[in-house]
């Protein structure tokens, strides 16, 4: 065979320093700073920024599982939104059952109520997720067209079941007593619940980051996203890994549903479909399969939609699409393209 194409062995100095791709991450602070003159007033800007971060982090909760599932098994679940709706309704029911805790002025009891609601939502959504994977997704592996149709069909059916269980009326979702209202710092008013959402979102992101980077399980997931066959050829059963990720992704979507319900203080069955659009935009922006990209994308979408919603409310959803188009023109595979083999 020809040796002309041979690659010379690299010496130590040939190796480039690990290029950390900071540019996409920098977009978030850049957007925040650019928005200040656009919004005009500092207190409003601060309020919008916190609202945007809260919304972005809730979107991240929901979207991260979907992007991982896609990366790992090349499965795009168009019915992911159903776990959001399910989580929101389970959250409503749990919170209303814990009326004593939510009405109490004790912050700890309030927090416990939200914790229970989120946990119940995650458990229910995760369990349904396992069933959904078995019935809807597994029979159509590798068949993209059928995958889209079946998961969409699954969503139609599941939405009707939710309607049958909870009824068609929109449900108000009250925030617990001590999480209503805002903290006032000088001129700046920051809603307490949004602050909580930011903290929770960051905590979950940190946990996910550690899991993916510091544990064998996480390394296997990341390796599987890049080259599923090779992970199997090393003797690991990617199937189980996938079911686990699918269930965890559904559970996080359920938790996200509860949080989004509390964020909007209203829950409707449409909440899933409504969020699905944002989720798709976010994971396309981030790069399909990339959790880090999903995080940055979610923050960008959350922030942009709050700023634009204030400056020019008419083009709100359109702004997310515009953001997506701009980013894809810059990086056609999204902010952090996943290296596939």
């Amino acid at each position, binding site marked *: 065979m*020809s040796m002309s194409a041979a*690659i010379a*062995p690299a010496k130590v100095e040939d*190796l480039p320093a690990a290029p950390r791709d900071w540019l996409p991450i920098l977009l978030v602070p850049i957007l925040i700073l650019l928005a200040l003159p656009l919004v005009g007033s500092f207190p409003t800007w601060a309020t919008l920024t916190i609202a945007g971060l809260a919304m972005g982090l809730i979107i991240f909760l929901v979207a991260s599982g979907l992007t991982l599932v896609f990366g790992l098994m090349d499965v795009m679940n168009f019915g992911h939104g159903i776990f959001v709706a399910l989580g929101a309704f389970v959250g409503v029911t749990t919170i209303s059952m814990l009326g004593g805790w939510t009405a109490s002025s004790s912050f700890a009891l309030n927090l416990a109520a939200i914790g229970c609601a989120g946990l119940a939502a995650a458990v229910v959504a995760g369990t349904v997720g396992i069933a959904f994977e078995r019935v809807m997704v597994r029979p159509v592996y590798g068949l993209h067209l059928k995958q889209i149709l079946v998961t969409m069909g699954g969503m139609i059916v599941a939405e009707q079941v939710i309607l049958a269980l909870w009824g068609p009326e929109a449900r108000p979702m009250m925030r617990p007593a001590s999480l209503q209202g805002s903290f006032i710092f000088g001129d700046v008013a920051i809603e307490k619940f949004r602050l909580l959402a930011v903290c929770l979102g960051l905590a979950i992101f940190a946990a996910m980051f550690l899991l993916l980077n510091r544990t*064998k399980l996480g390394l296997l997931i*990341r390796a599987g996203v890049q*080259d599923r066959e090779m992970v199997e050829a*090393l003797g*690991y059963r990617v199937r189980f890994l996938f079911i686990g990720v699918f269930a965890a992704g559904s559970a996080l979507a359920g938790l996200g549903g509860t949080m989004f319900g509390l964020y909007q203080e209203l829950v409707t069955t449409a909440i899933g479909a409504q969020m699905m659009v944002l989720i798709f935009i976010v994971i396309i922006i981030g790069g399909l399969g990339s959790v880090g990209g999903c995080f940055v994308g979610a923050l960008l979408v959350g922030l942009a939609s709050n700023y634009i919603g204030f400056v020019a409310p008419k083009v709100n959803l359109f702004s997310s699409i515009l953001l997506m188009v701009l980013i894809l023109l810059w990086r056609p595979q999204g902010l952090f393209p996943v290296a596939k083999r």
Partner: protein
Amino acid sequence: MNSSVQPLLALDGVHTHIGPYHILHGVDLAVAKGGITMLLGRNGAGKTTTLRTVMGLWHASAGTIRFDGNDISEFATPDVARLDIAYVPENMGIFSDLTVRENLFLAARKGPLDAARLDWIFGFMPALKTFWLQRAGLLSGGQKQMLSIARAMVEPRRLLLVDEPSKGLAPAIIQNLIVAFGALRDEGVTILLVEQNFNFASKLGDTVAVMDNGRVVHAGTMAALVADPELQARLLGLSLDSHQ
């Protein structure tokens, strides 16, 4: 080949279809325990498909694959790997977002990395030690190939399936590979190596099988093939051109 001893790996009339394409047309192949078997043949003869079918990455539509006497034709890939069969694919299958350490860490399925064994590997592949904590995607082609083979060495394996390790590598690196495979053979590992570079193959192989059109058309010792230029010309044709 000693036919009285049961081969470690035996393919019997294996057919493989990939989608609408019929690639393997009844492969018969026996790989004896110990030593290095070279699988030669021109492009598209079905060598890669043979390895992938053994690994369960593609499923045989007919025929049987036996490992140590047990039928593994229906095994899923992870179960094949758990028989201590290691696979080094043509594209090397490096996890480029993970570091060299993490790549090897995942390859050590049974437990933590063994320091002494790592030192032994670093003896052949010093670059891996140098770039231990670097992302594997930053390695050069040859270093990636080293890493891919090192993954198959971190724990003792019984059978190694290697797909064209010499492809696109400089002669100096190929020399390193020859040393590394030799060390594995001395450890008692059986190796099935797909190769197009006859020069490389002839230096390393104990036995040889030649494929064409999805079948094994010749099997014998490497020494006999090396000694018979006519047979080489008939079986390998083009491969002779690169004989240096």
